[in-house]
């Protein structure tokens, strides 16, 4: 084991680090400025905080109440790892376009073997600058870079306090760089406490201990920490595996100048291409067709398929692309020398089998709804469950597709008991069944008048000033017609303990001349339509 470790020499590693990434990502998705005092909370403890909060004395690991005491203007958000990771993904993709072999260390921090990038960009500093510029284009301006031998040293270089955005520890100087840093950076609390009591204060002190003695006393994890402290971090950058390229190239010699010839020439290749995917139990749902003409003109375009491509679908896409959406004559300006078909998105084929009774598997639903999300955005496709609350609008909990399970669990732990949740959790003052079929996303103002066309209000004591007699679904009062029946007022006091969020209003049910029933609310002299029974 020992021999193996010494055989693995530390690799020149670059670490890109975005400070306070959970805060940055959460603030961006909540639409809050990072300049404010923000804390991201996990299980009641501060997980990360913004610079302003830190200036007030908020620290990681502090209890939320303590943090609020130190910084009264603190805004706290729950830590949502999915959201934070999702925000980091574009940065990784951008980085992967510039350099291969990127490893995500954790959300907000990634590592790459710097040798190739340094050669390409002409030096480690130049490469770091290029990456930082790309990050800045994507809106992350305070990223930091550390370059050193081994990932641990590079990480520490990136995180070293100071104003420098790029810190490069020369090759071979990592032990020296780490020597004066505190032991806590090893992130091994038990070991650190013990070493502290043994009089060891810095990484350098620890590194000076004989490696064999450390191993026999502290075991394998101690030996690993010792190697880190000595700047001999043998961990290699383990890049995430980029998707395998599946492609089909057809070269035409001599080049073909008719679309039907090209389509015929591509057919066999397309069948082979789809056949290979099928043999790997994959289906292709998005592909890219690149067409090169004899004169070197190059046209490429991505095609999506609502289900998955069959061989004839692929040939169709090639033909459509050659036709260019216009007539056949105008498209081919020069003969076609090469057609390349690349699979962009592949998926497991068993997820796409048509079910015996027409509806497919859950995975196919997921794939299809994810596609809809790519059109209307992540928040555009929702699933619903029923939560607690008094108004019909409060009770419907809408969660973006894909986020459903953990959030649903948080809101409605017994959502399996479908439909009849009010029996399990009574909400006095909620609307009795049957429930309104139309629940307005935005309640809109309506007009209710009494018999003499005067306004209808509710007194402090909850009494009506006059009986409602006329109703118009518009505030302006057009289409004002007599009411058929009505019931109410049902007073609602919400959050009476909170002066800012306190509400008092009265609910009514009314039936208009068409026989359509409405759920109305009268709040501070204005009538609103909350929902409709249509």
């Amino acid at each position, binding site marked *: 084991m020992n021999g193996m470790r010494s055989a693995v020499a530390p690799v020149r590693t670059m670490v890109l680090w975005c400070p306070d990434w959970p805060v940055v990502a959460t603030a961006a998705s909540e639409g809050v400025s990072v300049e404010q005092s923000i804390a991201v909370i996990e299980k009641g403890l501060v997980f990360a905080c913004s610079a302003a909060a830190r200036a007030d004395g908020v620290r990681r690991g502090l209890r939320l109440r303590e943090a609020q005491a130190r910084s009264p203007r603190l805004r706290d958000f729950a830590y949502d790892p999915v959201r934070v990771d999702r925000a980091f993904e574009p940065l990784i993709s951008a980085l992967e376009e510039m350099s291969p072999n990127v490893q995500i260390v954790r959300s907000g921090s990634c590592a790459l073997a710097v040798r190739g990038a340094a050669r390409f960009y002409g030096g480690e500093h130049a490469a770091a600058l290029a990456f930082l510029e790309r990050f800045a284009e994507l809106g992350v301006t305070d990223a930091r870079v550390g370059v050193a031998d081994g990932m641990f040293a590079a990480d520490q270089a990136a995180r070293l306090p100071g104003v420098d955005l790029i810190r490069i520890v020369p090759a071979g100087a990592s032990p020296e760089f780490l020597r004066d840093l505190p032991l806590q950076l090893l992130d091994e609390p038990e070991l650190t406490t013990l070493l502290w009591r043994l009089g060891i204060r810095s990484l350098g002190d620890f590194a000076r201990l004989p490696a064999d003695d450390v191993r026999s006393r502290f075991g394998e994890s101690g030996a690993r920490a010792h190697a880190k402290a000595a700047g001999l971090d043998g961990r290699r950058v383990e890049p995430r595996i980029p998707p395998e390229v599946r492609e089909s190239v057809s070269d035409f010699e001599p080049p073909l100048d008719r679309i039907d010839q090209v389509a015929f020439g591509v057919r066999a290749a397309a069948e082979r291409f789809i056949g290979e995917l099928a043999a790997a139990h994959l289906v292709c749902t998005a592909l890219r067709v690149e067409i090169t003409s004899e004169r070197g003109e190059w046209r490429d375009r991505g095609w999506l398929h*609502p*289900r998955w491509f069959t061989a004839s679908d692929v040939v169709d896409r090639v033909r459509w692309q050659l036709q260019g959406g216009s007539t056949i004559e105008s498209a081919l300006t020069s003969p076609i020398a090469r057609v390349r078909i690349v699979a962009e998105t592949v998926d497991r084929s068993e997820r796409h089998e048509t079910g015996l009774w*027409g*509806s*497919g598997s859950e995975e*196919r*639903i997921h*794939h*299809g*709804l994810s*596609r*809809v999300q790519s*059109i*209307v955005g992540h928040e*555009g*496709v*929702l*699933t*619903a*469950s*029923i939560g607690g609350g008094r108004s*019909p609008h409060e*009770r*419907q909990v*809408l969660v973006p*597709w894909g986020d459903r399970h953990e959030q649903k669990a948080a809101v409605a732990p017994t959502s399996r008991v*479908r*439909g009849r949740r009010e029996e399990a959790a009574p909400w006095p003052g909620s609307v*009795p*069944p*049957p*429930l*309104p*079929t*139309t*629940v*307005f*996303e935005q309640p809109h103002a309506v007009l209710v008048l009494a018999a003499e066309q005067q306004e209808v209000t509710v007194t402090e004591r909850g009494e*009506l000033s006059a*009986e409602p007699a006329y109703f118009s679904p518009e505030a302006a009062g057009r289409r004002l017609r007599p009411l058929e*029946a*009505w*019931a*109410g007022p049902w007073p609602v006091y919400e959050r009476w303990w909170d002066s800012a969020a306190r509400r008092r209003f009265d609910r009514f*049910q009314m*039936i208009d001349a*068409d*026989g*359509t*029933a409405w759920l109305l609310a009268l709040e501070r002299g204005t009538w609103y339509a909350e*929902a*409709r*029974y*249509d």
Partner: protein
Amino acid sequence: MTDAALTLSSPAPAGEEIRALQSRIQQMQATKLDTRRVRTHPALESLLPGGSLRSGAAYSVESSTALVMALMAGPSADGVWCGVIGLPDFGVEAASHFGIDLERLALVPHPGEEWLTVTAAMADVVGVVVTRAPGRVTDSAMARLQARIRQRGVTLIVLGDWPQSEASLRIVESSWAGIGQGNGHLAARQVLVSSTARVGSGRPRRARLWLPDRRESFRPVLEQTDVAGSRGETGGPGVATTGLRLLQGVAG
């Protein structure tokens, strides 16, 4: 010989025979069409051509979300996924009470400019698509969507006008039980639904339904004395009297 003997021995009334023949013809038509029948809520069977919803067909409903939910309830109870597009005000809790499985319901409240793309993409995966056409839809877009749902075997339910619909349903009359002038609360509703089929006899079918009754379920009104929510002895006397009183009002 036996046939002749049978006809001689049991002189069935002419009307019954005709009805039997008609039902046989209908069954043959249903198997001849390449569209499949979709499970339909029993309350709506009498209103739909062929007695059920079909996959690959469109149905339109005029301005009643409850009727839309009644149409969705059948397929959803069968485990079919439903997609609701462009209806930001869809009452989810009412839907769940009316028998629509929320675990198999996807909502796209605001498809915006991409309405056609989203609806077509949704039709690829779910079995029932519910939507409201935004403002103006071109004939070609409509034809494309119609072709897509036929190809995928999807049932399309449109809230609003849809020219190629198999049947268009609307509420002609609606009367509520349980609410008075300042007392009570909404409890049950009886409606008269009229359905116009695209093909076949021009006379619209009509049916009187509880939409919903006092137990939040849909069912046909059996006769004039049918009382909201109480079948036979199960309903309490109080329920029965209010229902009766209201019904007398409706009938009168």
